[in-house]
């Protein structure tokens, strides 16, 4: 307990330095600014803003990125409530009752309760992370190469099972990601692999280039296909602060949503996405008048928004303790850490306690910041939502180009990004989800390293992965998950969860 307090104190002393508060604020602000744009989800937002953080020290950069992430999440909710366009899968649920409330002239209260619910959820989730962080890292330090490899396999399997769409297609995307990670000079033998003789590829595919192309540019092209029909709420936003009654009605769903979201968020894969859905279903089930849902029930926003934010935050747990990103956003965080020379994993907490605890404390600061930024700035977001897409996307493109160019002052990086934009667009058209690709890409190098180490130790025998109890157990869990996902009954249920 004492250690817990000490750790948090260290974290807050880092996060509350003037510079880091500033970065957190800036991150939240630009994150919301981009996240509010319809059709730009958190992944695209982070991918686009990644280059901005490269000039900053690692702790500051990660604090800013986390701020961008929360900002983007909240921006997505704002869009969901005001325009009825979910910026991302997790805010689909928010559109149901949020937009109805907005139509009834209660947009302000909807936005307010979303911000307050997110803040409460974020505060609780921060404590959960702080409490689980240290023990889990100790556990991870006992892992050998075989265990690590199996853990990553399990993480990828979870990612596939909990993702939307076809299972074989998701696995295929992971394989493509792994394949892309082998491009460049082989670390052990120094030989160049899959470089097509292009000198710029000998360092491998740049993470920011891949992410910006596949998530940023591909999404812009995709959005252009659908002619815009935007239904920005006209009329008054109304008062922002919920009344005492509203708050009383919303508090229990917020707490239940926080619990659900926090637990689901830790799961590898898109666990965080399930949180809002689960929370909405739960609230509707236990409500006295379920018919109010879909017609502007405040519980229908409070619960899912809290679940969303709690899940978004506990998703950091596998990343910070085990070094395994549970979803594409966390994969982007891994990329950002690696660029700053930090290899995510259990060693971060011992080698870089300031960074580790500073980031955790900054999560709480970031949530507070969002509450402060968003309530007074709602008017600005509403105005921004009225700017037509045809004017916005050329600006986004220019920003992205400058960002990519600035990473290495390289024009070839810009051209590679355009190429990955084409690839990303093709993947969307073929019905592939790009998120597993990014996960495979991020984990690829580490997986290959651990695989090689494990096979050297076992003298070339694959049996080592099954024979070592922890490694075997992890693989067994992965296998069971895969089998369950393939059972027809469950598959149908899974499809329903994602299409509802």
């Amino acid at each position, binding site marked *: 307990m004492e250690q817990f307090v000490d750790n948090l104190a260290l974290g807050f002393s880092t996060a509350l330095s003037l510079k880091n508060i500033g970065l957190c604020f800036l991150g939240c602000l630009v994150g919301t600014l981009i996240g509010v744009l319809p059709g730009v*989800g958190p*992944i*695209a937002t982070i991918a686009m803003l990644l280059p901005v953080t490269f*000039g900053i020290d690692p702790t500051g950069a990660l604090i800013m990125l986390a701020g961008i992430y929360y900002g983007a999440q909240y921006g997505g909710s704002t869009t969901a409530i005001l325009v009825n366009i*979910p910026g*991302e*899968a997790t805010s*689909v649920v928010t559109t149901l009752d949020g937009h109805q409330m907005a139509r009834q002239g209660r947009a302000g209260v909807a936005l307010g309760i979303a911000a307050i619910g997110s803040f409460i959820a974020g505060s609780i989730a921060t404590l959960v992370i702080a409490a689980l962080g240290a023990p889990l890292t100790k556990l991870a330090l006992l892992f050998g190469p075989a265990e690590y490899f199996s853990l990553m396999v399990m993480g990828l399997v979870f990612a596939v099972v909990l993702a939307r769409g*076809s299972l*074989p297609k998701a*696995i*295929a995307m992971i*394989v*493509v990601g792994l*394949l892309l990670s*082998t491009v460049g000079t*082989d670390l052990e*033998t120094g030989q160049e*692999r*899959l470089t097509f003789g292009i000198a710029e590829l000998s360092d491998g595919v740049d993470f920011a280039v891949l992410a910006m192309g596949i*998530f940023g*540019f591909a999404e812009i*092209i995709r959005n*252009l296909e659908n*002619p815009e029909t935007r239904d920005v709420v006209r009329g008054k936003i109304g008062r922002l602060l919920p009344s005492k009654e509203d708050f009383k009605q919303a508090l229990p769903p917020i707490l239940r949503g926080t619990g659900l979201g926090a637990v689901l968020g830790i799961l590898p894969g898109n666990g965080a*996405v399930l949180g809002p859905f689960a929370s909405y279903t739960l609230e509707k089930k236990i409500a006295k008048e379920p018919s109010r849902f879909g017609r502007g029930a405040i519980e229908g926003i409070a619960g899912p928004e809290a679940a969303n934010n709690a899940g978004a935050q506990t998703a950091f747990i596998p990343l910070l303790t085990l070094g395994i990103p549970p979803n*594409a*956003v966390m994969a982007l965080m891994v990329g950002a850490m690696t660029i700053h020379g930090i290899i995510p994993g259990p060693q971060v907490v011992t080698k870089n306690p300031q960074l580790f605890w500073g980031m955790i404390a900054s999560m709480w600061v970031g949530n507070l910041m969002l509450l402060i930024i968003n309530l007074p700035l709602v008017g600005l977001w509403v105005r921004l939502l009225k700017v*037509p*897409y*045809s004017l916005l996307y*050329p*600006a986004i*493109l*220019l920003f992205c*180009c*400058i960002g990519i*160019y*600035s990473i290495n*002052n390289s*024009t*070839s990086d*810009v*051209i590679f*990004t*355009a190429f990955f*934009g*084409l690839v990303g*667009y093709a993947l*969307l*058209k*073929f*019905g*592939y989800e790009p998120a597993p690709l990014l996960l495979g890409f991020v984990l690829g190098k580490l997986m*290959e390293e651990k*695989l*090689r180490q494990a*096979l050297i130790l076992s*003298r*070339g025998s694959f049996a080592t992965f099954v024979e070592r109890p922890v490694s075997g157990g992890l693989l067994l869990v992965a296998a069971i998950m895969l089998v369950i996902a393939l059972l027809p009954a469950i598959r149908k249920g899974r499809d329903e969860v994602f299409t509802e």
Partner: protein
Amino acid sequence: MAPDQTGDQSVPHAARGTQDIAAGLFLIAVALIAFWQAKGLPLGTLRSMGAGMLPTALAVLLGAFGIAIALIGALRPGVAFERWSFRGLLFVLGSIITFALTVRLFGLVVAGPLTMLIAGAADPQTNWKHTLIFSVVLTAFCILLFKVALRLPIPVITFL
């Protein structure tokens, strides 16, 4: 996590999953390219893996998935292959490549507005007057932000 890309309500269905057939063929092509590139690399043994082991193994695995996905598409009714928006592809990617080609040659003063104007052509709803004014304003803003404030070494004007 990504926004709803499938447009759930109105997925066009077809007698055969032409989308899956195309998706499978795409994977097979990627697998063949990777296999060809990894061909000269030593495989090594399991005990000490060579540089080519993993890429080759992944390429084979990917090819197998490609065949399976294409077969699923060919044998079962499924989602129809969607039309590609070549206008969007051409002008969005064209504007990015234009940026890459002009930023060193002329500097941001030219590359900025040029990129935004070419990108503007991707959307039929573009209001050219607005985009033109906005591109000049935004370029000026970018110069102030990236060059003056953040001091990134990005060329601003190279021809004067």
